[in-house]
């Protein structure tokens, strides 16, 4: 049983600061984390390993600093970490990113067969949710996005039953293996890393893959060349003009509320409030 998990190191978007003059992200000192959904993907992989034996490989494409994220994954129970890093990969959009990850997975698969691919449902820096489906298409494996539960898993029969959240409810799907799942946080709850993992991680050095070695990537499919989309411009959203404020402390409760209702009625937005009403007077 061999699972490959794709993780991304992202700025903690609850803490990002934007330079108001340039409209760009202030990267210095910005805390980075493993994309929250990816942590749950890894946890799912570790649980499957505990049940069926085998191994968990984690890979990430990113700057050299992303090696830290892989070490954290070893703490959480991964066996092998691969950092794909090279200046030539810079400025990749989702098409180029999915190429690099798919090509890397093919190389891993050539060494030892892969039964399952786990991705986060989306990365919180861009929220695109495109890389997982893109990789599934490239590798021509079944895709199950927004997975919330693995109901049954049978590596020998090469079948799995997976729940995914869709707009109408929860869809229960049966798929052949290998398959690619993009996961929600419910897929598996995070546990505290056990001590032996921490010890192993302390001395762990992830493997580093470049654009040329050990597996050459197609130069036309990576980085800027491989990315059909470019950022034309970036800007901070313009503030809207603030509306009127009424203070309960100044005008009293009933008057504040009747002013509001009169304005709403005047705007004619709610059929259940008769237009022209002056607000319910006290």
């Amino acid at each position, binding site marked *: 049983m061999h699972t490959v998990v794709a993780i991304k190191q992202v700025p903690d978007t609850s803490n990002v600061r934007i330079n108001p003059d340039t409209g760009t992200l202030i990267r210095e000192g910005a805390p980075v984390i493993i994309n929250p959904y990816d942590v749950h993907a890894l946890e799912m992989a570790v649980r499957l390993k505990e049940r069926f034996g085998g191994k968990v490989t984690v890979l990430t494409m990113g700057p050299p600093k992303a090696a830290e994220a892989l070490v954290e994954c070893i703490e959480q129970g991964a066996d092998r970490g691969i950092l794909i890093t090279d200046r030539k990969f810079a400025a990749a959009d989702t098409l180029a990113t999915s190429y690099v990850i798919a090509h890397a997975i093919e190389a891993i698969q050539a060494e030892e067969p892969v039964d399952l691919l786990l991705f986060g449902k989306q990365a919180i820096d861009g929220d695109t*949710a495109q890389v997982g*489906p893109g990789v599934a298409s490239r590798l021509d494996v079944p895709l199950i*996005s927004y997975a919330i539960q693995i109901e049954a898993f049978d590596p020998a029969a090469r079948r799995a039953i997976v729940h995914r959240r*869709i707009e109408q409810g929860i869809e229960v799907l049966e798929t052949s293996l290998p398959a690619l799942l993009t996961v929600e946080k419910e897929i598996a709850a995070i546990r505290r890393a056990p001590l032996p993992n921490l010890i192993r991680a302390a001395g762990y050095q992830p493997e580093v893959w470049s654009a040329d070695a050990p597996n050459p990537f197609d130069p036309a499919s990576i980085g800027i060349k491989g990315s059909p989309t470019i950022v034309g411009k970036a800007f901070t959203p313009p503030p809207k003009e603030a509306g009127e404020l009424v*203070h309960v402390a100044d005008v009293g409760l009933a008057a504040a509320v009747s002013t*509001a209702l009169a304005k709403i009625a005047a705007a004619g937005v709610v059929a259940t409030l008769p237009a022209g009403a002056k607000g*319910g007077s006290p």
Partner: protein
Amino acid sequence: MTAQPTQQTRRIWVFIEQEDGAPHPVSWELLGAARRLAAELDAEHAVVEGVLLGHQVAPIAQEAFRYGASRVYLIDDPVLALYRNLPYAAGVSRLVQSYQPEIFLVGATTLGRDLASAIATRVQTGLTADCTELTIDPKQQILAATRPTFGGNLMATILCRQRRPQMATVRPRVLPMPQPLAEAAGELIREPLDMAEEEVPVRRLRLIPSQQQLNLEYADVIVAGGRGLGGPDGLPLLEELAQALGGVLGVSRPLVDAGWVSAEHQVGQTGKTVRPKLYIAAGISGAVQHRVGMSGADFILAINSDPQAPIFQVADLGIVGDLYQVAPELIRQVRALQGGDDHVR
């Protein structure tokens, strides 16, 4: 079924999403945007066309014509009865390769996001997700797709210069719903799927339907509560106000995280984008991740005890006060207005 694009025809495509034969309204919102883009791009040669997949769904094409499609490409096949990534992606990608649209818009729904990325990868083109604004760049004559990034802290306008189609997804309710024409005709082009059920590696065993059909996205009135409620016990109060106004309950994310209410009620970047006629935000500070989900409302009333709360910057009217005083008074006055009893006149 042969493609005969005249040299000048510039196709703007919209994926007409349907499930169980019911079209998703985001399809009409996208057709509205596509018509505007066609006019901006090249009023003479640009055409708006729909792409429809499913089983026995031809009647939906008629609706697409009324919302502005001049043509609908239909793949109708039992294999497509339920959405699955592989047959849908394969079918649509083949249409793209035959007819070479210039722009292709897909709804950023659960289904649409799953599908759009697979298509973009198969046809090797660029895809911009969750756009909030679509225009034609007047100089380069290409699609300028604007989207929030870094948790809504920054907006980016994305271009796809060389490859075609230029693909974009837009969430439901981000774009206005256009008025349908009373009557309209268009051309229906049927295409085969050429895929047998045995070739599809995924099978639906069952569907566990969600208990309530909330449909927050299309509600006309939303009364939303935030951490200012202080605890789950305040929710019935807001539900009562929502009911009085014929609306539904929305919430900010911390309430979902705390388990007070299910995720279907969440408004914002990681929840739903809503566009009600009236949005009442009670005890919500107005973080950017919340605002991106609700600032398209026609009228926003904010209730917050802190006069500095950022929610007041997007509100049409703000009441500075304690929601536990203001909401009951709102309920009372709304009921009085509707009841039309004596002391109101």
